[in-house]
């Protein structure tokens, strides 16, 4: 057991898989000699050489497509797209190629491709450098999407992604890179799509993922001081979603709150509320609530940027409303 950063956990996961399997290659902009813009691939170039750790030109569409072709011809590529914003240039490779080829070929081809995408709202990067795309990718059959919130999950889920024969998108969060936590490399990992109950509680279920799961835990501590016990679920995977774990918790608490950094309109939370309402309608004691980002592009201004994404206080306020300890508002943020 060691206490390391999220980026170091990702680095260890790369190293473990590259050491175990010669067909694993890493490619992307500045992943090699430079060591990765978030240091995630630091040291791999020296260890595994320029063929297995490939610095690419600024050509997101084609180097992601290169990963697809290489995966069809016997390699297990890990493509790093520097930030989710640039992934928009690679959506043809992700959606039309990686997600479709196994299906269109009648299952003849597998797609052992991992696409790592740092994402989320960071520090004043403005609208073209901080956005969420999970809702877009979730709507594509044929992709798996994991959203690790802790160093341990980053380690486990990246290793599992590289070993998977399906295309797996690893949506990292840029603000989690320097979060520290215990990583046990010898422990047995849960399945990559299994949701984690990060805190048990009986009054309401808060479902969240990525950095917002950590924010929900902070909110839960505030609520506990007021006598409200929140159960906090970290989804860990947005496709597929572990509905069983979610539904079991909602049936237990009777209250459902979603906390997400994605924009509210047609975001991941909309799918969570719809599915869990269908599954658990008779157990719900109040209409579910969503705490989500405002439907605005990210402003550069520091104060405004904090205001458009949910803070622990916003999650706590919505929880109070949900369990009837505060007046219900029409459109909570």
């Amino acid at each position, binding site marked *: 057991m060691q206490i390391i950063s999220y980026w170091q956990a990702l680095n260890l996961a790369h190293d473990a898989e590259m050491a175990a399997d010669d067909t694993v290659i890493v490619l992307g902009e500045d992943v090699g000699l430079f060591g990765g813009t978030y240091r995630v691939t630091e040291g791999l170039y020296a260890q595994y050489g320029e063929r297995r750790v490939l610095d690419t030109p600024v050509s997101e569409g084609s180097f992601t497509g290169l990963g697809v072709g290489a995966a069809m011809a016997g390699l297990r590529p890990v493509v790093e797209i520097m930030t989710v914003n640039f992934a928009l240039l690679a959506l043809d490779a992700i959606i039309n190629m990686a997600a479709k080829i196994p299906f269109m070929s*009648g299952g*003849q081809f597998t797609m052992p491709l991992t696409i790592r995408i740092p994402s989320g709202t960071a520090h004043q990067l403005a609208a073209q450098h901080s956005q969420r795309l999970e809702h877009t990718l979730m709507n594509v059959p044929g992709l798996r999407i994991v959203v690790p919130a802790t160093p341990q999950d980053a380690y486990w889920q990246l290793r599992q992604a590289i070993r998977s024969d399906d295309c797996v998108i690893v949506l990292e969060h840029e603000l989690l890179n320097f979060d520290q936590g215990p990583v046990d490399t010898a422990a047995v990992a849960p399945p990559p799509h299994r949701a984690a109950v990060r805190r048990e509680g009986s009054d309401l279920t808060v479902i969240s993922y990525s950095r917002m799961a950590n924010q929900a835990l902070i909110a839960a501590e505030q609520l506990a001081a007021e006598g409200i016990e929140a159960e906090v679920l970290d989804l860990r995977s947005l496709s597929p979603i572990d509905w069983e774990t979610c539904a079991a918790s909602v049936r237990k608490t009777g209250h459902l709150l979603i906390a997400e950094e994605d924009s509210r309109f047609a975001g991941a939370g909309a799918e969570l509320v719809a599915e869990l309402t269908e599954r658990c309608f008779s157990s719900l004691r109040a209409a579910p609530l969503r705490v989500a980002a405002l439907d605005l592009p990210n402003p550069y201004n520091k104060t405004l940027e904090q205001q458009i994404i949910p803070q622990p206080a916003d999650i706590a306020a919505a929880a109070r409303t949900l369990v009837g300890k505060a007046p219900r508002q029409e459109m909570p943020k």
Partner: protein
Amino acid sequence: MERELHIRFLRDMLRARRMEERIAQEYTRGNIGGFLHLYPGEEAVAVGVLHAAEPGDYVVSTYREHVHALVRGMPMRNIMAELFGKRDGCSRGMGGSMHLFDTERRFLGGYAIVGETYPIAIGAAYAVMMRGLPEAVICFFGDGAVNQGTFHESLNMAALWKLPVLFVCENNHYQIGTEIHRHSAVTEVYKRAAAYNIPAAKIDGMNIETVNRHAREALAQVRAGQGPHLLEFETYRYRGHSIADPGSYRPAVEVAAYEARDPIAAEMRDLSLHYPDADTLHALGLHSSESLGQHYIEHGHLDTAGLEAIEADIRAEIDDAVAFAQAAPEPTLDDARRALRPSLIQETLI
């Protein structure tokens, strides 16, 4: 030997032409749906290039790929069944006309988004380079596809890392209905390769011998580790872009001019000139020439009966393929789910 090669060329070009003609018929009978892009006129390119390929090579193709798949060795039965949307199709009825795939023959698929073949090809070529085997990747694309960003991005990477790719441009002069002078500032595709230091040439795509010779030479260089190569084959499609397109934007005289250079007719002419049938020899007064007669007995010759035998074989192959496709079962939703997640079972622990 040379004659056998030419008969193989002729046989494959005829199989391609007759198969596509039958596919058009089956479409009008309602047995085939969706978009359908046919190949007549361009046969010398597919047959000439793919007869230069080795079994270890990879092939990446476009949405006009039935003939590429056929010449690569995919059984006509599985092509036809796929077009009929049946479970015994090469892609189990999930792909259709534009998405033929075959792992066994390293046929990496037909792609229906223009410009997708380049990144797939350089990816496969990267895997080949890592293994260090003398294999090559053959990447087909049309003249309309060279204005996509992926063309430039992928040619850059292919040249930068000396990847073993043969880029094959089937220049049929039309991007659906837009003639090349209206879609490209530089209409000679091969010249664009110079921007990335990739050796390239423009070749007559209506002459199978020329196509095959250049493809062999280029592939030899690619396999020898000399990096990518680009060949632009000037060719023509007699039909419109797809079955729904009558192609009326093209002057009749232009279509007629290319039809006059039909690669199949040319091949038949060449074969009958070099290997005239018995009646022709007789007419030429050569029947008494024992030495020449001996020559043709030794080497055989393509006479009318020989050609008819080839055509009969092809008719039988096509009839069999259509009967197979008609009898094949429809795929089920379970088949579709299995196709999407071939490795669902692999939800395992590390």
